[in-house]
C-alpha cells in the first residue's frame, strides 16, 4: 500500500514537475496589457551617433530599457546601435543581440518601421540576402518615403545579381535623402559598371560626409583607397589607408589593406606584421588567407600551412554556426587546390546563394581549376557582363583562355589585368606576368 502510494506520488510529482516546467500558466513577457508606444524620440536622441559615442548610446538605451522594457522605439534604436557596434568591433555577438532586441520590438509592434528595416540590414550582414530583400520590401510598404529602406533593398538586389533593379533602388535612395549611405552605394554601383572616375568622386563625397565619425571615416577612406589600389595607384591608396588608421587605430580593414600595399612594395615582413595584427583581431578568411600567402612568399612554408589550416577551422565553425557556404572560403579552397571537386560544389552553392558577379567569377574559377574550361568561360563572361574593370576577374579569364588553348587571348587578358593593377594578387600576379611574357 505504502509502496503504491510512494510510486504514485513519484509519478504525480514527476508529472507536476513537468507541468510546472511547462508552465501553461506562466505569464507572457509584458506586464502591461497593451504596449504603450513611447513618445516620438527627439531627433537628437535618435541620432546620438555623435563622434565616438556609440558605446555611450548603447549604455543609455540599455539603462532606459531596464526600467521600461517594452519601449519599442528604444529597442529599435538599441538594435541599430548594436549593429553599429558590430561594424566597429567586428564581434559577431552584437548581431545576435541586435536580432534579439529587434525581434522583441517587432513582437511589441508588428508594423514597426525601424525594427523591420533594422532586421533587413542585419540580414544583409549575415549574408541572408533573400530575407533581407523581403524585409526591405516590407519596410518600403510601411513607408515608401524613407530612404534607408531603399539601401536595404538595393544591397540585397545587387548581391542577388539583379543589378538594374538594385541601381534603381540606390537612385531612389539618393533622391529621397542624399547622405553618406547613398553616396557610398552609388560609388559602389559606378565601380561595378566600370565608371571609375565617378566611383571616386562619389566615394569622396561619402568620405566628406563621414568626417568626425570614427568608423564611417575609416570605412570610407578604406573604400576610397581600394578604388585607387584597384588602379595600381599605390601612393594614393596608401594615403587613404593611413588616414583610416589615424581616425580609427587598429581598424582591421585598413591594416589588411596596408599589408597588401607593403607586400606590393616588396616589404614582406612589415606586411606580415600588419596582416597578423588584422587577423588576430578578427580572423576573417580573407585575412588569414592573405597571411598564409605572405608566409609562402617569404619562404616560410610551415607558417603558410598553419594559416591555411586555420581556414578549415573557420569553415567548420561557420557551418556549426548555421552560416551557409561562404564565398571567401570557397575561393580559398579553389585557389589553394583544397579538394578541388568538393570546392567546385561549394562554389556552386556559394554562387546559387549569391548570384552576383563575384559569385559568377568564383564559380568560373572553380570550374576552370577543375578543368572544365568551356563551362568556366561562360561563367566568366557572366561575371564581366556589367563592364566591371576588375584585375582578378580579368586574370581568371586569361587563365581560362589559356586552358582553352587561345594563347593570344590569354596574353591579352593577363596584360589587361596587370595594366589595371600590377599587384592585384600575391598568388596570381606572378602567374599573370609569366603568362604575358611566355
Amino acid at each position, binding site marked *: 500500500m505504502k509502496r503504491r502510494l510512494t510510486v504514485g506520488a513519484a509519478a504525480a510529482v514527476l*508529472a507536476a514537475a513537468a507541468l510546472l516546467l511547462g508552465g501553461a500558466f506562466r505569464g507572457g513577457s509584458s506586464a502591461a496589457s497593451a504596449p504603450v508606444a513611447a513618445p516620438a524620440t527627439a531627433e537628437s536622441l535618435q541620432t546620438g551617433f555623435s563622434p565616438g559615442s556609440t558605446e555611450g548610446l548603447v549604455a543609455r538605451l*540599455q539603462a532606459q530599457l531596464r526600467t521600461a522594457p517594452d519601449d519599442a522605439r528604444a529597442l529599435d534604436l538599441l538594435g541599430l546601435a548594436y549593429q553599429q557596434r558590430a561594424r566597429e568591433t567586428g564581434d559577431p555577438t552584437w548581431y545576435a543581440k541586435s536580432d534579439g532586441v529587434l525581434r522583441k520590438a517587432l513582437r511589441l509592434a508588428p508594423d514597426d518601421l525601424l525594427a523591420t528595416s533594422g532586421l533587413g540590414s542585419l540580414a544583409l550582414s549575415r549574408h541572408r540576402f533573400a530575407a533581407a530583400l523581403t524585409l526591405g520590401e516590407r519596410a518600403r510598404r510601411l513607408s515608401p518615403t524613407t530612404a534607408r529602406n531603399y539601401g536595404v533593398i538595393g544591397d540585397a538586389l545587387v548581391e542577388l545579381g539583379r543589378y538594374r533593379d538594385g541601381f534603381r533602388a540606390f537612385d531612389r535612395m539618393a533622391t529621397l535623402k542624399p547622405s553618406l549611405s547613398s553616396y557610398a552605394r552609388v560609388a559602389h554601383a559606378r565601380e561595378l559598371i566600370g565608371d571609375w572616375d565617378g566611383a571616386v568622386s562619389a566615394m569622396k563625397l561619402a568620405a566628406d560626409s563621414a568626417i568626425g565619425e570614427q568608423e564611417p571615416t575609416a570605412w570610407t577612406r578604406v573604400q576610397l583607397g581600394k578604388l585607387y589600389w584597384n588602379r595600381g595607384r599605390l601612393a594614393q591608396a596608401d594615403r587613404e589607408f593611413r588616414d583610416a588608421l589615424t581616425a580609427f587605430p*587598429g581598424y582591421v580593414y585598413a591594416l589588411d589593406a596596408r599589408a597588401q600595399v607593403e607586400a606590393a612594395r616588396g616589404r614582406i615582413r612589415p606586411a606580415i606584421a600588419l596582416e597578423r595584427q588584422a587577423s588576430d583581431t578578427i580572423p576573417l578568411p580573407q585575412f588569414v588567407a592573405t597571411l598564409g600567402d605572405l608566409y609562402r612568399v617569404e619562404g616560410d612554408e610551415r607558417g603558410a600551412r598553419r594559416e591555411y589550416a586555420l581556414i578549415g577551422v573557420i569553415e567548420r565553425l561557420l557551418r556549426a554556426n548555421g552560416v551557409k557556404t561562404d564565398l571567401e572560403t570557397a575561393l580559398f579552397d579553389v585557389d589553394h587546390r583544397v579538394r578541388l571537386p568538393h570546392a567546385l560544389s561549394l562554389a556552386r552553392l556559394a554562387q546559387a546563394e549569391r548570384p552576383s558577379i563575384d559569385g559568377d567569377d568564383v564559380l568560373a574559377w572553380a570550374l576552370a581549376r577543375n578543368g572544365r574550361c568551356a563551362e568556366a568561360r561562360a561563367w566568366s563572361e557572366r561575371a564581366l557582363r556589367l563592364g566591371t574593370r576588375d584585375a582578378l576577374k580579368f586574370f581568371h579569364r586569361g587563365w581560362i583562355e589559356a586552358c582553352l588553348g587561345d594563347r593570344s587571348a590569354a596574353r591579352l587578358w593577363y596584360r589587361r589585368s596587370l595594366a589595371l593593377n600590377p599587384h592585384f594578387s600575391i598568388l596570381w600576379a606572378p602567374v599573370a606576368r609569366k603568362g604575358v611574357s611566355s
Partner: protein
Amino acid sequence: MKKLLVLLGVVAALAAPASASAHPLGNFTVNRFARVEVSGHRLYVRYVLDLAEIPTYQARQQGVDPAAYARRIARNLRVSLDGRAVTLVPAGHALAFPQGAGGLHTMRLELILLGPTVDRSARLAVSDTNYPGRIGWKEIVVGAGTKSESDELRAYPKSLLQSPLDMTSAAATVSPTSDPPPGLTTGKALQAPDRVADSGFAKLIGRGHLSALVILASLAAALFWGAAHALSPGHGKTIVAAYLVGQRGTPRHAALLGLIVTFTHTIGVFGLGLVTLALSQFIVPDRLYPWLNLFSGLLVVSVGLAVLRSRAGAWRHTRAHARGEHHDHHHHHGHSHVPAEATGMRGLVAVGVSGGLLPCPSALVVLLAAISLHRVAFGLVLILAFSAGLALAITGVGLAAVLAKRAFARSSFDGRVIRALPALSALVILVAGVAMTARAVPKVGF
C-alpha cells in the same frame, strides 16, 4: 520486457551527446578574468583565461605550455600597492580543453599568482595588459567574495541589455583578511563549465558530410531536442495530463495522443513552412503565430466546455441514481458511480491537435534551411524525428499522469476525490484554454 527496451532506447537517445555548443561570445574571443584577493596577509590573484575555438586552435598549433602562459600573464598583469609595483609569481595552474563548436575545443586556463604580503590597509591598482586589442570579455574583481558577472568566465550573461564587460583596470583598498587562499577548479567543473548550449536542433541541418553515421546521430539528436523542447512552455502538457486524468485515460490513450501530436506537429511545420515560402513576400512568419495561438486556445476551450457539459450530465445522472430512480443502465457491480464515459475520440483528437498545432520555431528554421541547403529529404526526416521526440515527451507526461492516477485509484483514497477528479480536470482544461485564448487575443492585434 519489450516496453523496458523501448524505454531504454529512449533514454539512450536522450543521453546522446547534445549538438555542438558554440562559445557564447564568438569563436575568436580571448576572454580574461582576474580576481585579486587577500588571504591572511598575502595577496593572491586568481586568473582565468578562456579562449574560444579559433585562438585555442592557434595556441595548440604552437603547443600550450601552461607554465609559460602563467609567466607571461603574470608579467603583463600590472598590480601596484600604494603606488609601488609588485611582482606576481605563478603558484599553480589548471588547464582543460572543453568541447566547443564544430568538433573543436576551447581552452580554459586557471592560474593562481602569488603576490606580496599585505600587513595593513593599502591602495591597490590593477591593470591587465594581456592580449591587448583582442576582442573578448575582460573582467577584474577585487575581493574573495565579490560576485563575478560571468561567474569567472563560466556563464556569460545572456541578457540582450548587457554589453560584454570591457574592464582592463580596477582600483580598491585591500587589507589583511581571514579568508582562505584561493584554489583551482578541478575535474568536471574545469572540463565542462556551464556552457550555454545554442539551439542545437537547428544546427543539425548544417552538418558537414552526411554519412550514414552522421545521419543516424543527427536523428537521435533530433529526437532528443524534440523531447527537450516539449518540456519548455507550451504544447499543452497540462491539458494532456488533465484530460487523461479526467477521462480515465489508459496508457494506450496516452500513446495515441502522442501519435496525434507527432502528426499534427509535423504537418504544422510543413504547412507553415510552405506558407512562409509561398507568401514570403508578404508575410513574416512571426505574424502567423498569434493566430495559431488563438486557434489553439479556442480549441482547448471547446474541449473543456464539452467535457464540462458531459460532467454536468453525469452529475445529474449520479444524483438521479442516488435518489434511486430507476433506469436501464447495465451496471457491473463494483464499478464506481462515475459513469463509464468512454474517452471521446473527438476529444482526444482535439487535445492532441491543440498540443501539436504550434510549430516550434526551430523546426521551421530547419525546414527552411533544409530547402535552401538543398537537403530537403534530410530536413524532413529530421523534423519527423523532432516531432517524434516531442510526442514521446508528451506521451511520457501523459503516461505519468495516467499511472499516478491509477496508483491513487488503487489506494484507499476514497471515491470522493476520484469522483471529483473528472470535473476538476474539465475545469483545468477550460481555465487553461481561456488563459491561452486571453493571452493570444491582444497579440493578434484586432
